[in-house]
């Protein structure tokens, strides 16, 4: 039967991020109350198995490493650091099953660290952070057995005037490693907004061993709040979702050139949902990169899907509070539960499903 589970997170302040691990059996949440909580699925119920203070400021994002590197998470915070945590088995003081210890603190940033992401597994244990001062930093654990030492591989700044808000690794095995960065203008409003591109792509040059800017999306000049590469799944192009004023989806296809010179990218804007009247906060792909979930200012989660027969469209709108008609009532009214969505009619300001 169709049910939403609503879990009281018991964070003392705003929750900024929620992340599933590789298998989808664990969740991590982070909050302005400076803590991170770990949730484990036990007998179909989510239980908080660890909760600890991680930073001296709001924790913006949390990310899981691939399980082959151990139970590792990375956090980033307003306190200008990012940290890597490893789960240590054994009872902790507060009766939780495990405790997490800080393996490393990445202190290179002079401002708030706004995002942290682990690289896809085939690139080894690497992570990238981006910060308000506009820098992207890429770190690598030299030895995956000693997680205390991370060496900074590279740092790059997309623009002198912009702050970075979010980043995403492409999961492609086919192409050189690629990172997309979303930016925002940290100057307060009503100052002339810069017309620079707010989404920038970096590619790792195998020859130069440096991260190089390969593309800037000049069409996006508004604050970007989230970027996300779709799982690559062996396709020969990247798909990137961008949450800004509107929701954008791009396809990025490297064009093979015979010359050894820099391969160029063919960037195509697949879609821009302008009818998304409110701002988009977050975007997230499903495991195959075929359905995109987005959350927006209207307090709803929307699901978008496309296939080769039809273009991208919204296939479901989920109320943020998880409250909706029970499907039993719905079945009585309409009989066929699969034929329509299960939600009450939306008000006029919201985009209806199709």
């Amino acid at each position, binding site marked *: 039967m169709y049910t939403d589970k609503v879990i009281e997170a018991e964070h003392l302040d*705003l929750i900024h991020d*929620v992340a599933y691990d590789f298998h989808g059996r664990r969740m991590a949440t982070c909050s302005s109350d400076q803590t991170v909580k770990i949730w484990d699925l036990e007998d179909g119920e989510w239980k908080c198995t660890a909760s600890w203070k991680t930073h001296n400021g709001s924790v913006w994002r949390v990310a899981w490493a691939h399980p082959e590197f151990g139970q590792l998470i990375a956090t980033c915070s307003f306190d200008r650091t990012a940290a890597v945590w490893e789960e240590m*088995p054994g009872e902790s003081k507060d009766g939780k099953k495990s405790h997490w210890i800080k393996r490393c603190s990445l202190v290179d940033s002079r401002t708030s660290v706004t995002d942290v992401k682990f690289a896809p597994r085939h690139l080894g244990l690497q992570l990238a952070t981006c910060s308000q001062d506009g820098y992207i930093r890429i770190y690598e654990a030299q030895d995956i057995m000693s997680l205390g030492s991370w060496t900074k591989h590279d740092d790059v700044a997309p623009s002198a005037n912009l702050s970075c808000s979010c980043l995403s690794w492409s999961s492609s095995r086919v192409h050189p490693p690629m990172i997309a960065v979303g930016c925002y203008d940290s100057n307060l*409003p009503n*100052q002339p907004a810069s017309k620079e591109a707010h989404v920038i792509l970096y590619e790792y040059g195998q020859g130069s061993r440096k991260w190089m800017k390969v593309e800037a999306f000049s069409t996006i000049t508004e604050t970007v709040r989230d970027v996300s590469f779709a799982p690559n799944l062996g396709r020969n192009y990247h798909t990137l979702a961008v949450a800004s004023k509107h929701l954008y989806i791009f396809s990025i296809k490297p064009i093979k050139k015979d010359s050894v010179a820099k391969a160029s990218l063919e960037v195509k804007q697949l879609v821009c949902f302008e009818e998304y009247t409110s701002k988009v*906060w977050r975007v997230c792909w499903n495991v195959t990169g075929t359905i995109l979930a987005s*959350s927006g200012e209207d307090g709803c*989660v929307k699901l978008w899907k496309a296939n*080769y027969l039809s273009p991208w469209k919204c296939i*479901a709108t989920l109320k943020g509070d998880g409250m909706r008609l029970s499907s039993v009532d719905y079945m009585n009214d309409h009989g066929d539960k699969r034929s329509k969505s299960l939600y009450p009619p939306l008000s006029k300001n919201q985009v209806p499903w199709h």
Partner: protein
Amino acid sequence: MNSLEAIAWSTCMNDKFILLKNSVRSLYKIEPNVSSDSLQTSKNSGVIKISDKGLAQLMYTCSENEDIRCFDLCPRNLSEQILAAGDAKGKIRIHQFSRSADVDSIVGNVYNVVDQPRHCNCLSWNRIHTQLIATGFDKYQKQSTVFITDVNRPNAKQLVVDCDDIRREFKGSNEAALDVSWLVEGGYNLVVGYQKQFKIFDIREPKDPTIKRISNSDSKITSAVGLSVDPLNQNRLATFCSFESQKGTISVWDLRKITQSLITLTENRNILRISWCPSRKGYLAALPTHSSVINLYDVTNSESDEIELAHMDRVINVSSDQPGNVVSFSWHPTDKSRLLALTDQNDIKDISISERMSVSWSPEFSLSWTNDGRIVNCDTTFIDYQIDSDISTTMKARAKGGYGCKSDVSSYLELTQGDSTLTSLWSYISRMNKTSSETDLKSTVMKGAHSILINNENDCCRSTNISISWILANENSLSRNKSQNSKRILYISKERDRIIEMCGWSSLNERESAEFENKLTDLCGSNAERAAMIAVMNMNLNVATSILSKSDQENLRLLTIAISGFSDESNAMWKEVCSRLSPVMNNAHIRAIFHFLNSQPCPSYDQILHSEDLDLGDRVAFACLHLADRGLQNYLDTVMNHSVSEGNLHGLLVSGLSTEGLNLLETFLEKTSDIQTTCLLSQMSTVNDKRKDIWLQEYRELLDSWRMWHERADLDIYLKSAKTSPQLFITCNFCGKSISAARSANTAGCVVFAKPNTNMNRLNACPVPTCRKPLPRCAICLAHMGTPSRLVQTTGNTKQSNFSDWFTWCQRCRHGGHSSHLTAWFEENSDCPVTGCSCNCSYLDPVRYVCESETEY
């Protein structure tokens, strides 16, 4: 100066708010979830729409002949809302919002605070000492401008209020007081904003009430035209000013170190009002003048106190649909991030600011997002059929059914039901598998029609053309050689025969045999049209009519008349009717039959060859029969290129699993995201291409993320990929020889190294024949390894030594023993069983998290 227009939530009733406009005081009650129908019916009875699902019902309205300049709501918890209003003449009145008897004795009181009539600019009711109201007035000569009134003394005219030692007038402050507010803590401190400074007074200090003063000289930016005290942080105060130079500057102060503002925010317009959110920490709303939006700032403070940072959180667009500037707003006292805004077009908007929701999607289709301190967990497969039919769920279901790791390909037909392309592809592959038993599946499928035909570079295999006449119904052999007209030229060669066979058609030689009809019916099942078409294309009209006449559909039976009407002589009328009717024939097979019959004397088969409705196999087989070498080659080229660019899996028939075929799979993958089928098909290819490995890796990783390790292992075994060399060796501690090596010499099997003695009675603990020393002891039973564990009895399965007798050890402390003993131990303990070892062995296994709720499935 215009009269005051303001809106405010009631302080004692959560669902009511007051509206002040043109000296009319109104009280509204919010009726949630009222349909818009009732709005229509009650249009004139004071109901206004304030949000998408809320209406406000007018409860009370009262017009006073006074010019209200400022007001504040009584913080007392009464059954009705009461309000203190200051007017242009300097009087303060207490009003209530009901017609019933007075809820409090102070209602109706009028206080003459100042001697000379002057504007009352601001008014603030003390939240703790609810009898006190602070008021700020315009400047008049050298008189004071800030007064405190004790409402319990209606006619108080005296300067000093007695017992609490509270003075009602602050001397020496003769600038116009523009805004006044009580600080939260204690209720004794009053902050007053002036044009160029703000001051904080302590009303308990009779002699020098000014405790803190920020003036223009003290700090670079001082602003106090309006102020707001943070109700959630007693030390935080925000002010704004209206100087030309500092127009629209908002400063946030920490009252503990007042010398400098913590944060300065710059709006480029004058500001009408600022207000801290009472329900969310650090939210400051600022309303600029002549603006349709309210700007919301998030003032975060870090614990380290080194930096405070404010950033524009968002812009609240109040009147998105209608024009209108916001003139007033009010935060809801308890509901989270909810505010009410009033525009100059008399619109009232009830706005809830939703939290930024973070979204995450687990590989198992469960979507989680955060909302208002909660995590909402939603299983997306139940939402919509479109999600349920998504390739991600489809692939998982197919993988569970064993898709890709069975040698009998025909079992995939059931798994791929619902996807006709895949079904026909697998039936083609399974057909190939059966017919070419002599060769490996891989090599057969790999060869497509294109590569069969074109052996060498661009050299199409030569064929012989033969001319064949129709086999007509009920005709004797005499007519066969009568007319040249009745003949068609067909082409045969060994290669063509092979392709025809691949397409499922029977060979041309069989067309005259008696079994021809049965074969066709077997091939096409209930699809009589297709069987008839194949018969016609094999020049056998007799069988075609026979098949159609046996059909249970009447219109098909009628068709036999039309087909038998075809004669060898060109019959102009028949042909004309035929070509006229062909567009209205719905069935592509029927259309192809008539097109083929009609295309004499100048055969042009384009319509058949490029009919998308026909199965590609049928079209290719047809081309093999009827096209000359050059034409056939061109046709196959076209078909292949087209299928590759379309990602049409049927095209594999032509391309085979050559490089072209992999290109085709790549397009297919891009279109459908079906990494599973792509991976499985590409693995049948013998072409050396790195894409094969990438697809395999991606698919294996997908299976891993679904925790379908068994399926992945089955796949690896089936594909013979991912060969792993032995990873562990155990050597004897004494002689250094490998235990497994020594044993495998004797017993020749896998997992030998852990296999104990099969003879339970013989306690032969020595593994290595060379040194005759025993293995270490089990930490639990203290028997030597290699001797059977006595805890669990073996149950008949002699193929494999009992798993419980294997030995295992902790990777960290290197203590171990019989696995059954250790399992039993760790059920109750988490520590190592060895004396003095503090290792928490059982917690070292991260896999347990992934496996724990495995039983769900």
